[in-house]
């Protein structure tokens, strides 16, 4: 399948996702991947937890649309997006984006493009839970600005 999108509670395995990108696909010599994970955002105030909420249905549609836009823009083989929801501890992976192509820059650019659009368009919301209470993570202006280069 050229495009695969998953929104899931379960952890994903980067090695397995890579294997899926490559399986039976020896035409593409290039595979680029991006993984976003939970930082120690409250380092010093104790370990925090993240809770990821999403808009079921719309999320999958938006991610699928972003993957298709990337495929229209670059010559890509496969595109894979996996995004986790629910509770996440520091160090845990949140999002996997992978793309294969004949040319390395196409695969890398596609990952950057998908992440930039995902950050500003896919309906996910993060809440941090720490010893000091909980708060919704604020959207960053830099994520909105990142879209301007595309």
């Amino acid at each position, binding site marked *: 399948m050229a495009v695969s999108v998953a929104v899931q509670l379960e952890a994903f395995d980067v090695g397995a996702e890579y294997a899926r990108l490559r399986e039976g696909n020896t035409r593409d010599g290039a595979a680029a991947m991006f993984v*976003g994970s939970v930082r120690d955002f409250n380092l010093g105030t104790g370990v925090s937890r993240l809770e*990821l*909420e*999403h*808009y079921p*249905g*719309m999320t999958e*549609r938006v991610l699928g649309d972003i993957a298709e836009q990337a495929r229209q823009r670059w010559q890509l083989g496969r595109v894979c997006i996996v*995004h986790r929801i629910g509770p996440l501890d520091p160090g845990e992976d*949140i*999002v996997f984006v992978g793309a294969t192509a004949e040319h390395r820059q196409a695969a890398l650019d596609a990952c950057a493009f998908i*992440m930039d659009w*995902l*950050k*500003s*368009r*896919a*309906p*996910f*919301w*993060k*809440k941090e839970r720490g010893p000091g209470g909980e708060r*919704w*993570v*604020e*959207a960053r202006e830099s994520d909105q600005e990142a879209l301007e280069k595309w």
Partner: protein
Amino acid sequence: MIRVLFFAGLREKLDCAALEVDSGGLETLADLREKLGERGDPWRRALADASLQMALNQHLATAASPVAAGDEVAFFPPVTGG
């Protein structure tokens, strides 16, 4: 009827994840937002937030987007995934 969903911080502020609104007299998402504001001050204040985003049938929409019976509308803060 129009199905209306609220997410994240907005859902918490309103203490409401979803409700149904009679589509009578509503032409746009702006009309819907105003009608929801009639539910009280917390609603009016929360829905007046300029950064609020709207989706119509799971596509991003604007206050001017036309709305009709059977639609699914969502209001939510700027997204923070990835």
